[in-house]
């Protein structure tokens, strides 16, 4: 391993450790500091992971948009790698957001799912980026595949503002945001601080996951170059882990 690669690996390990430590502090706050909601009971504590997963999903798909535009403009594989990594992590967090929302909805609304504007548009967002990843994995021509995926990544972002403002534009079972720019927060200080802390921690975790996913692309690129240099034949399918 080169010195640079060693430093990168150490930095990522340190960042991951900090994120996990931050998460532990957040959990202590969630379970031992913030008060229990008078109406929703303990289930309301799902809020502290539900909102950060939504925020990370928005951030991830904004980076897919940025990476896609950057790739179409420059043709650089780094931009494409950023878009792909962000899409993968974004899909993970959107899935977790949908799941935690359902688990919160059941005790509070009496149902896991309802086709209201927020839930439906989030589900569509999930499907768009799952489609993006499926398309990428099936594309036979990498360059053409990356270009088409970039267009999907740009068009798909249209759903993000739709998801965010759906609770304002339509009548939904899902509540409106409790923290809005320019308005006083409708939360006690301990709840607000804990939620903001979890937002920061999830953002850090997201950054680490994207960096690890991009590192995988770099390693793959190095492997391709090494194989091309050696002018060797591909291995039969199924003989190595995918």
């Amino acid at each position, binding site marked *: 391993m080169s010195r640079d690669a060693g430093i990168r690996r150490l930095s990522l390990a340190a960042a*991951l450790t900090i994120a996990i430590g931050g998460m532990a502090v957040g*959990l202590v706050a969630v379970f031992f500091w913030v008060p229990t909601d008078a109406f*929703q*009971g*303990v*289930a309301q*504590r*799902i809020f502290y*992971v*539900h909102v950060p*997963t939504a925020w990370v999903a928005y951030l991830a798909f904004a980076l897919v948009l940025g990476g896609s535009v950057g790739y179409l403009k420059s043709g650089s*594989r780094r931009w494409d790698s950023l878009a792909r990594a962000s899409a993968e*992590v974004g899909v*993970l967090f959107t*899935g*977790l957001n949908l*799941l*935690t929302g359902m*688990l*919160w909805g*059941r*005790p*509070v609304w009496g149902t896991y799912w309802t086709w209201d504007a927020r839930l439906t548009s989030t589900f569509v967002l999930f499907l768009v980026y799952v489609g993006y990843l499926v398309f990428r994995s099936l594309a036979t021509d*990498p360059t053409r595949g*990356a270009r088409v995926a970039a267009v999907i990544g740009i068009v798909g972002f249209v759903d993000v503002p739709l998801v965010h403002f759906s609770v304002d534009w339509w009548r939904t079972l899902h509540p409106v945001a409790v923290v809005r720019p320019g308005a006083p927060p409708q939360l006690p200080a301990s709840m607000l601080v804990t939620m903001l802390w979890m937002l920061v921690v999830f953002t850090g*975790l997201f950054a680490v*996951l994207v960096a*690890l*996913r991009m*590192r*995988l*692309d770099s*390693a*793959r*690129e*190095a*492997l*391709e170059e*090494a*194989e091309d240099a*050696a*002018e*060797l*034949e*591909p*291995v*039969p*399918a*199924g*003989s*190595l*882990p*995918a």
Partner: protein
Amino acid sequence: MRGGLAYLGVAYTAIWVGIAGYLLHLGRRQRAIEQRLEELRSGGADGGRRPPGEHP
């Protein structure tokens, strides 16, 4: 809010399992590629064959 604790437990477990599972998945893929690269560089016995699914 009967059963709220159970929903809370499942939600937090799902979060950690999801994130930890993805981390393990990335680590496994990374190790497979690095091992292959190492074999290539050291001129291993089956040297140079491309792992399936590792195209860009």
